[in-house]
Structures are given as C-alpha cells and as structure tokens.
C-alpha cells in the first residue's frame, strides 16, 4: 500500500514538473507606481511548447475591485528559443483608488498531453499615489484657459471649409438658375451667339434661294416654304421673337411687341406671309412678279432692319453692297417683265 502511494506521489510530481517546463508565464506592470487616474500597461508573456494548448482568460472590465481595464489588445504570437512559442498580450489599466493594490494570480488553463492543468502568474503590487497637498500654501485661483499659438495646421481646415462653402454656394446658385431655365423650357447653357449676324445668314440664304430658281421650275411651294423660313429665322435671330413656332399673325404681333413700328415693312411682311400661307396651305400659284416681289420684300426687310456689329462692319458693308446689287437686279428684272 505504501509502495502504491509513493508511486502515485512520484507520478504527480513528475507531471507538475513537466507542466512547469512546458509553459513559462510572467506578468508585470510598466511601473510599480502610478498617479491616481493614470493609465499603465500590464504585460503578460507566456511561452509554451508547440503541443501545449493554452487559453487566455476572457477579460471583463476590471482586473480587481480597484484596477480597471481601459483597453485590451490582441494576443501576439512570436517564435521563441528551444522551439517554443511566445504569446504576448498587453492590457491598459487604470486605478482611481489610492493605495497599494494587489493583482492576484491570473490563471491560464492549459492542456498538456491530453491532461488539463493550470498555470498562474505571481501576485503583483501596484501603488496608486495621490497628489500631495501642501497645506501651508494659500488656496490658488483657477488658472485661465491657456492660449494656444495659432499655426498653419489650425488655419487650413477653416480655409478648406470656407472654400467648400463657396463651392457649395456656387453649385446651389447654378442649380437654381438651371431649374428656372429648365422650367421655362430654355436651354440651361445659353447658346453662344452665332459668330455670324442673322442678316448675313439671311442674305446668303436668300441669294442661294434666288440662285436655285425653284419657282421657275414649278417648285413654288418649296420656294415659299424656304423663303418664309429664311425670314422667320432672321426675325428670330434679330428680334428675339420665336417666329419659327408662331403663325404669321403671331409673328407680326411679336414684332410690334418687340418695338418694331415701320408700317411699310410690316405691310410688306404681311403680304409675304399671306402669300406664303396661300401657297403652302391652299395650293395657290402666284404670278412670276408676285414671286419676285416676295423675294424683294424679303431682301428689303432684312436690309432695312439689320443691326451690324462693329467688329463685323467691314464684312457687313461688303454684304450690303452685294445685297444692293442683288436687289437692284431683281427690280430691273421686274421692270423688264413689265
């Protein structure tokens, strides 16, 4: 019986020795003393054989009643000497109770060769100090707020914010403008004014139309459609009247509203549009001199209402000379026919 007991005791002591050799555990604070409320790290270091399985405790929010956990860092593993593995974990702790506090042994469950065991750290002391009071001195007033010197690092966020505010204001302004234009069914970006004044375009188109001799080739409807379109396009560019989307009467009203009061030209325009409407919509076949007169009326209207831009004066004068020649040619033609 005694022999069995001795054998059991020997076996247990041998296993405990094996555990101690397979696992080394230590725990220490950065410092043995801190001021009250200061934070300090607790370093836990555990070395184990590869075949030993160790479980780190699940930390709560306190280590002891007086030592609180601020933050827990993850376990870091690195290879150590003799084929061992070193596991490290830091825990940031603090204490708000002065005095000497004892951190009791922290137990780590482990498994060696299929047998469960436990290793523990040694107790550690932590002194938490308070601010010493000098009672011989008078009470001091509360110190004013420190004035921090202003540096570039302080200014740039404000500059950036101001810039962003300006940008946002510009975007909002543009958004409102775009919305108003959109609701009024106008293009958001104003079409850049054509480099060519409307009368130059109109006169060129009239010249081209005259050269094509449409009515002479029994294409009277095309002739009047093109002729009225040229004049309407010119009115749109010159007087800002939406002539292409208006009927003949509306165009004449629009001209009057735009301040155009030349009754002679209005009458000629009315005659032109009436005849064009008859040809376009009522299969009318005007006489040749009516066709020529319509062309002449168009030239006269454009020529007498054009606005020349200063930069383009030279070009316009040249065109005016051409137009005069064209107009004279038509008048001569009509006289010859008569």
């Amino acid at each position, binding site marked *: 019986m005694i022999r069995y007991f001795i054998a059991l005791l020997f076996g247990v002591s041998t296993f405990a020795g094996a555990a101690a050799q397979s696992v080394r555990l230590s725990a220490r604070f950065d410092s043995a003393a801190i001021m009250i409320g200061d934070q300090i790290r607790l370093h836990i270091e555990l070395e184990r054989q590869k075949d030993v399985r160790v479980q780190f405790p699940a930390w709560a929010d306190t280590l002891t009643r007086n030592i609180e956990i601020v933050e827990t860092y993850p376990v870091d593993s690195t290879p150590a000497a003799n084929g061992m593995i070193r596991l490290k974990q830091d825990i940031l702790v603090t204490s708000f109770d002065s005095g000497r506090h004892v951190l009791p042994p922290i137990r780590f469950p482990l498994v060696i060769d299929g047998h469960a065991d436990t290793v523990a750290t040694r107790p550690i002391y932590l002194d938490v100090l308070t601010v010493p009071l000098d009672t011989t001195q008078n009470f001091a007033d509360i110190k004013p707020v420190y004035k921090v010197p202003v540096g570039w690092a302080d200014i740039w966020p404000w500059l950036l914010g101001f810039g962003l505010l300006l940008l946002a204001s510009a975007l909002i302004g543009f958004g409102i403008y775009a919305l108003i234009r*959109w*609701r009024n*069914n106008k293009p958001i970006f104003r079409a850049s004014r054509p480099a060519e004044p409307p009368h130059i375009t109109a006169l060129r188109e009239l010249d081209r139309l005259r050269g094509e001799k449409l009515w002479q080739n029994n294409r009277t409807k095309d002739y009047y*459609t093109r002729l009225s379109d040229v004049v309407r396009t010119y009115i749109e560019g010159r007087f800002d009247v*939406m002539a*292409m*989307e*208006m*009927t*003949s*009467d509306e165009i004449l009203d629009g001209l009057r509203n735009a301040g155009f009061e030349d009754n002679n030209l209005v009458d000629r325009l009315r005659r032109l549009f009436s*005849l064009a*409407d*008859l040809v*376009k*919509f*009522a*299969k*009318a*076949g*005007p*006489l040749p001199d*009516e066709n020529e007169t319509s062309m002449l009326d168009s030239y006269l209207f454009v020529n007498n209402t054009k606005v020349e831009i200063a930069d383009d004066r030279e070009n316009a004068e040249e065109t005016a000379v051409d137009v005069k020649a064209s107009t004279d040619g038509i008048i001569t033609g009509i006289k010859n026919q008569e």
Partner: protein
Amino acid sequence: MNESVNIKELNDRIRQESAFVDLVGIEMNKVIVGQKHLVECLLLGLLSDGHILLEGLPGLAKTLAINTLATTVDARFSRIQFTPDLLPADLLGTMIYSQKEEQFLVKKGPIFANFILADEINRSPAKVQSALLEAMQEKQVTIGGQTYPLDRPFLVLATQNPIEQEGTYPLPEAQVDRFMLKVVIDYPSKAEEQQIIRENLGQVFPSASAILKPADIMKARETVKDVYMDEKIERYILDLVFATRYPGEYKLDRLQPMITYGASPRASINLAKAAKTYAFIKRRGYVIPEDVRAICYDVLRHRIGLSYEAEAENMTSVDIITSILNVVEVP
C-alpha cells in the same frame, strides 16, 4: 394671283355657303352678350358634328346660349337636369301601357331633340351618363327592342360645375374623350355685364329669329368636309398630338413626368375636323396653322392625363398645351 382652279372655286363656294355664319352670329349676339368663344365653339360643334363639354360657373348663359342657337336654327331644344336619381329611361324614353289602345306605346325621352343641354352631367350615376354617351356616339336609341334614330343635327352640350365635387360622379377619361371640345367659360367683362343688366331690366328681352333650317346645317357639314387641308397642316396636327404622348421627342423632357397619358387618335381626328370647321367659320376654303392653334386648347385640354407631380406643381393641361405650342414648329 393665279390660284389653282379647285382651291379658288372651293374658296368662293365656301365664302358663299358660310355666309350664314355671320347671320347666326348676329342673331346670337342679340341675346347673348359677350361669350364670343362659347358662341364660336357652339358653331364649331354644330358644324363638325361633335359634342361639347362645357365647364363654367352657374349663371354664365350656358342654357341661354344653346337655346338661342336652337331658335336660330329652328330646331328642337331639350334641357335635362342630371340628378342622382335620374334613370336612363328618363333620358331615352320608355314603353308605357296604353289602356285605350291596349298595348305598350313608346314614350320618347327628352333626348329626341336637335340640341340637348345635359346640365351637370356629373350629378348622375354612370348608367345614365353611359346612356347619354352611347346615344351621342351611335346617334340612335333603342327602346323596347326598337331602334329609333335621333334627330339631325344632334348636338349635346354637357355642363360640369367645377366648384362642387361632393356627391358627383366624375366622367371617366374614356367617356370624356367622346366630347369633341371641352370649353371653359369665364365671367363676362364689366362692360358686357352692364349690358346684360340693361337687357334683363328692359321691357322686352331680346330674342333671336330663326334664320336657318336643320337641313342647312346638314348641308354646311358636307361643305366643311371639302375644306382643303394641306399635308403640312396634317403633320403639324400630328406633331402637336404626339408631343402630348412623347414630350421627350420634342425637347419637352420636363413634361414627361407630368403626363400620365397623352391625347388619343380621336384627338387627332377632332383637331383636324375642328380646324376645318374653324376655317369654314372664318369663311376660308383652306386650313392654316392659325386655325389649328385657335381650337387646340378646346380639343386637347380634356384628353391629357395629369400626373400627381403635375397637380403638386399646380400645372394644368392648359399649361402643357401652351408649352407644346411654344415648341412645336409651325409649318
């Protein structure tokens, strides 16, 4: 000017045959002060063989206008007040047992007249509205298995009161579409109203004379069909109607969410018919874009479905039509 013979002849013929329009205008103006647009639309409906939905506040001479027109044309006029308890038989007629003759006899309803004023059509339930609208479409009524053609000309002027919506049965879109025109009338001007007061307080209220026969109207309708409409005008009408359906294709993307449904093909037909009639009323033998634009609002305003977004933005069908007219190019 050397106009093509056909158009010149047509123009002359229409100038002659439309002379009565001025006379009708004169007779109507004896009784109706102002409301020129209403009178013009009544003539449009009468000569186009189309019916009119009239929206306006009470007391704006709706009944007087159609009654006067009936007098001028020497035609029969009926006014039917639509009420919630009205039955189709009250409108169309029914079979009544005659003890004397010992058989059922047909008692024709008030719809058997040339001019019908269906007052406050939305006060009656759908079955009565349907009965009227079917009669309008078919121009005949079936009572007791026997079909009776309605009098010609047959013009229905239905009114809706825009301010009272309690206890009404709004006309469904499909039925509203059957009206050729929807005319909105407004108050007369001050001068017109002063004239109205004087006429009403005078010893004798003016009355119109009969200057036409229903047969003259039927003949004029045939003449209206001859009014020339160029292909360019047809394309313009199609552009206007298609712009209500596919605004995006006409640079009107902002209208897309405002419209739930656009005008139907019936709108195109009626727009063309009304434009021809308008040209006839203006004593012309051909249609010009002015004619289309003049009747565009009345033909299209009840044929465009407005979305919730449009109502939230206080946008009406009139605003949509205006936007379309401002964008679609006139030929």
